[in-house]
């Protein structure tokens, strides 16, 4: 027989024998997977953000089939928890609504932009800027505005506004918390929804004082204590020259917002 034909026949024969063995083995050794798994994965948002504490949506789906609570999905919120509860026939429980918020309002002519970023020639990334850039006497707790958080959001909930400051769209935000780990200045936090639809929130972390603060940014919190004095529930405290609102105590009356001379306090709206 011609050697080429022999070669081809031989290799084909080995391959065929191997494939027959494998087909038989796959029948004999088939592993039954829980048929509900694909359905449960389909109900989950599929963002694989990890806010539930499991490795990805599939990991959480497997855990739920083994009896884990169905209310851990941040992006899915109450709706997904109810769907899962209905599908698996368990109690939905309470889902905590969380939203990210950027604690900086910035100003178009803040020193961070006009001096530091104007002299900066590195890569356009907040995290690179935070490690490399020469910082003048600008606000060291302000939004850098290169939008690392915008790029990190899998849902497109973040954007840069006209002042080059990141803002969260609460209607799109799912509270997964990915952006909170990105910001080198730790400006983004997750806030849990309490009783109210709206609460006041201080959009500034600047610890600078008086004239220096005002020079660095027009919208800075000066630490003037006016908000602290007008708050009827004592939810506002001023520490290190910057005000802070305890969301759990805030009744959303807006007194602090009206009292603030620079407009550093803003209502935070919950959606969903």
């Amino acid at each position: 027989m011609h050697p080429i034909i022999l070669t081809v026949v031989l290799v084909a024969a080995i391959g065929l024998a191997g494939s027959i063995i494998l087909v038989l083995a796959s029948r004999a050794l088939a592993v039954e997977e829980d048929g509900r798994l694909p359905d449960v994965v389909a109900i989950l948002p599929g963002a694989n953000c990890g806010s539930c504490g499991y490795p990805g949506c599939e990991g959480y789906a497997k855990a739920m089939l083994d009896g884990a609570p169905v209310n851990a999905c941040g992006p899915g919120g109450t709706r997904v928890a109810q769907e899962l509860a209905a599908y698996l026939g368990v109690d939905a429980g309470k889902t905590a609504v969380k939203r990210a918020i950027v604690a900086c309002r910035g100003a178009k002519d803040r020193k961070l932009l006009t001096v530091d970023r104007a002299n900066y020639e590195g890569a356009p990334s907040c995290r690179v800027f935070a490690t490399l850039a020469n910082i003048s006497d600008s606000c060291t707790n302000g939004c850098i505005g290169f939008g690392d958080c915008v790029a990190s959001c899998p849902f497109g909930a973040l954007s840069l506004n006209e002042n080059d400051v990141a803002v969260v769209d609460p209607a799109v935000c799912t509270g997964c918390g990915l952006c909170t780990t990105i910001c080198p200045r730790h400006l983004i936090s997750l806030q849990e929804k309490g009783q109210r639809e709206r609460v006041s929130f201080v959009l500034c972390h600047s610890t600078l004082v008086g004239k220096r603060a005002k020079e660095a940014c027009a919208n800075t919190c000066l630490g003037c204590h006016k908000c602290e004095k007008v708050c009827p529930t004592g939810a506002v405290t001023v520490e290190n020259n910057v005000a802070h609102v305890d969301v759990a105590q805030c009744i959303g009356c807006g007194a602090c917002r009206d009292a603030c001379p620079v407009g550093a306090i803003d209502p935070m709206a919950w959606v969903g």
Partner: protein
Amino acid sequence: MMAQYASILFSMILVNNFVLVRFLGICPFLGVSKKFDSAAGMGAAVTLVMVLATAVTWPIQQLLAAWGLEYLQTIAFILVIATLVQLLEMAIKKFIPPLYTALGVYLPLITTNCAVLGITITCIDEGYTYPQALVAGLGAGLGFLLAMVLFSGVRRRLEDAEPPACFRGMPITLIAAAITALSFVGFSGVIDHLFGA
């Protein structure tokens, strides 16, 4: 007769250790040696594949030699090894699911583990008889298992060690692997004196 088999077995485990002396199968050696359990599981899986692979490829080699097709050795052997690994993967998934998750992608990668192809070709090159080839396959597998288990212990020590920042992670692991390999050089000649082969 027995001395000859013992000589092959122990020289494969110690003197010609596939990982630490011949530097074959480094990928799973570095990839799965982090935990003792998965290292031992991987070692056992590779041992099984090595014995099965030598058991199947030795007759095939005789077939190839009879038809004068020795040049098909590599492709035919890889085909057989790939089939065996697939088979093993199904069996592990069915009977030992925790090991299946622990080994992850390294399980199908046994297919391309050069140590497995290495032992089958070594058996042919050394001119072993069929029982000798089986013993050599077992020895090579046990040698791999030994290397994996030893190195998983070394790596556990490495986790507590505090090397300079630039050495942390893979660099210090590679250095530790090199030192472990160096210790195996000490075995050269031991078997010859023990069994007089």
